[in-house]
């Protein structure tokens, strides 16, 4: 079978996923601030109002609690809402709805009411947006049972994972990076999905395992090239979903490389990286030649000044340093 592919931007991939799912399932609708007439604050939903009309592409007032809760009610009645947060930073005002209601409804109702909803939007530092607008919510939200959390890295995964999210019967937090929206990649013409809980080895290697999600994978892949020149052959794993976490792929890799670095844009304390480190220590204790090293954002509020923000975020240099440090005894 020959697959025809197209080069598209990350934002087009997100839009194609939503539009295609809306064409195949009338229960799917998109709701959020500026998604309809404005065509999306980041143009992700451009043109969707024209195709689907105002009953399915719905502009809301600036009421995150209100429309997040509304989506949850609609999902309890078996619709398939996609709720866009202009930024996940703004989801904090809807924390009760997204953390107390969506993930617990099925359990609290003893299996009576599920919550098949997708919350999506920008996550992570967008570039000099300062402390309030630069949240990496995965650090906060991934400890809550009952949600699935996906972080796509390229247009192929953006489309395939979002389709899976929309078809999924459980609530999904879909974390997109504003810094990736204009990046390009090829996607197949035909329908496809990317399953949750299946990590992808983006670069095979033998000397050190690097695990990451979303945008910091760029730094990991760049670092891997730099380190290869020094004779350190890194295996870069894209976790794709934090929940479910494909720990098996990580374990298999670490058993081979005996070293592990986790790169995570959220803060270090009680973070995704610390969880993965704990699990790797637990399952690969006898295989490790050093403790797991972590690269996180610094443990301070996100600064505005360019130089400070750059110093604060994970980058290629920090990944290289962590890999050199962890493998010093190789």
């Amino acid at each position, binding site marked *: 079978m020959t697959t025809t592919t197209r080069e598209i931007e990350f934002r087009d991939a997100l839009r194609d996923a939503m539009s295609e799912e809306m064409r195949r399932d*009338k*229960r799917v*609708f998109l709701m959020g601030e500026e998604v309809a007439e404005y065509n999306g604050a980041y143009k992700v939903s451009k043109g969707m109002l024209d195709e689907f009309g105002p*009953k*399915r592409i*719905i502009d*809301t*007032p600036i*009421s995150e*609690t*209100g*429309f*997040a*809760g*509304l*989506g*949850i*009610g*609609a*999902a*309890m*009645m*078996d*619709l398939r809402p996609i709720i866009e947060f202009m930024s996940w930073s703004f989801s904090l005002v809807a924390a*009760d*709805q997204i953390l*107390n*209601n969506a993930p617990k*409804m*099925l*359990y*609290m*109702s*003893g*299996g*009576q*009411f*599920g919550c*098949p909803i997708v919350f999506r939007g920008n996550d992570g530092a967008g570039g000099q947006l300062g402390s309030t607008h630069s949240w990496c919510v995965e650090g906060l939200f991934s400890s809550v*049972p*009952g949600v*699935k959390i996906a972080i796509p890295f390229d247009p192929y995964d953006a489309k395939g994972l979002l389709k899976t999210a929309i078809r*999924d*019967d*459980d609530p999904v937090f879909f974390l997109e990076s504003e810094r990736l929206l204009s990046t390009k990649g090829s996607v197949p013409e035909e329908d496809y999905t990317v399953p949750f*809980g299946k990590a992808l080895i983006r670069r095979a290697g033998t000397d050190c395992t690097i695990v990451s999600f979303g945008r910091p994978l760029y730094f990991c892949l760049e670092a891997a090239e730099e380190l290869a020149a020094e004779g350190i052959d890194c295996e870069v794993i894209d976790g794709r979903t934090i929940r*479910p976490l494909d720990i098996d792929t990580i374990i298999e890799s670490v058993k081979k490389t005996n070293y592990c670095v986790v790169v995570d844009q959220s803060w270090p304390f009680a973070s995704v990286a610390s969880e993965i480190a704990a699990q790797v220590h637990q399952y690969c204790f006898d295989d490790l030649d050093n403790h797991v090293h972590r690269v996180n954002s610094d443990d301070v509020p996100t600064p505005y000044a360019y130089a400070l923000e750059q110093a604060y975020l994970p980058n290629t240099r920090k990944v290289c340093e962590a890999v050199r440090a962890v493998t010093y005894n190789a």
Partner: protein
Amino acid sequence: MSSTTTKTTKSPAQGKVDYDPIIKELPEQQLIQWLRDMLLIREFEVRTMQSYQNKKIGGFCHVYIGQEAVAVGSFAALKPEDPVITAYRCHGQALARGIEPKYCMAEMYGKIGGCAKGKGGSMHLFDKSNNFFGGHGIVGAQVPVGAGLAFASKYIDEVINEGASTRVAMAFLGDGALNQGAFHEAMNLAGVLDLPLVVVCENNGYAMGTAIDRGTTRGDNISAKADGYGMEGFVVDGMDVLRVYADMKKIVDAARAECRPKFVDMRTYRYKGHSMSDPRKYRTKEEEQQYESQDPLDRLMMYLKATTSFSDEQYKTMNKDVRAEVKAAIKWAEQSPEPTPDEQLYHDVFVEEFGPYTGTSVPEMLEEWEKPDSQKS
């Protein structure tokens, strides 16, 4: 029902009063049924308090005694397919909507036979077969979800079935919940999105120990708030089931016909404390007695006696019957097994099975209902 500017609360009805003409047309059997429904709630709650004291029920527990007319009268104005949602003071609402008492009681007992297999508890009762969307523990959080029920009802009718909107959602909240942002966001959304939603504030005058005037602006007439959201507001006497029904019928019918939200200041009173540990120091005995003297069960009883042949004898039989029903519910709850960690702890977290999670299934209560009609016994 009065307009948003007039004050309500008259002296208690003494037998025959000038009810709305639609009340006179109701069959006697209907009124007797409402009396029984209210009696069932009251008896259920009395036994709930006992069971709580006997440590059979744990956690926080809020009873509905005094407010029975609100649930019974309001739901009588709805159709079975209309979705409803409420806060944590939900036992009366669940019963009035038609859940069997044994499933409620077993839930509070933390048993597998409970409506949520013992995972929800007193504040989180659900009944999908009666379109009862819970029982919600966070003050105000259910109101946006209620807006979602209205949205989905309309969406299913208009977008999926390509017809006209036919359903109305009803969302209840307490007077204390009026001060939560979630309420205001939901009201505004219901207004701008033309949602068929009736928001009913069960105004029992207190949020725990905070009297409404201490926490809420326009506490004397909260229906005035509706105006700010571009919807009609109403004041309803929630201590009289016939008034509740007559007023709510008109309000619900209008919301349905116009596909628009409405707001109701439902004046009521909770006879007991906020929860099981409240000595009620913030109000007077006289005030309590004044409300108890307009008891909704007594008022309906008086009306029945004045206008029909309903007798004390019939009432006694009804009472006996209800007691037996609640007693049987308790017995059933006691005999229902505890949920086992092996089977239940990791069940109903996700629909999908993966890792330690074992998928989901409906509670015993819905097993029969879930079957396709051909397989029903």
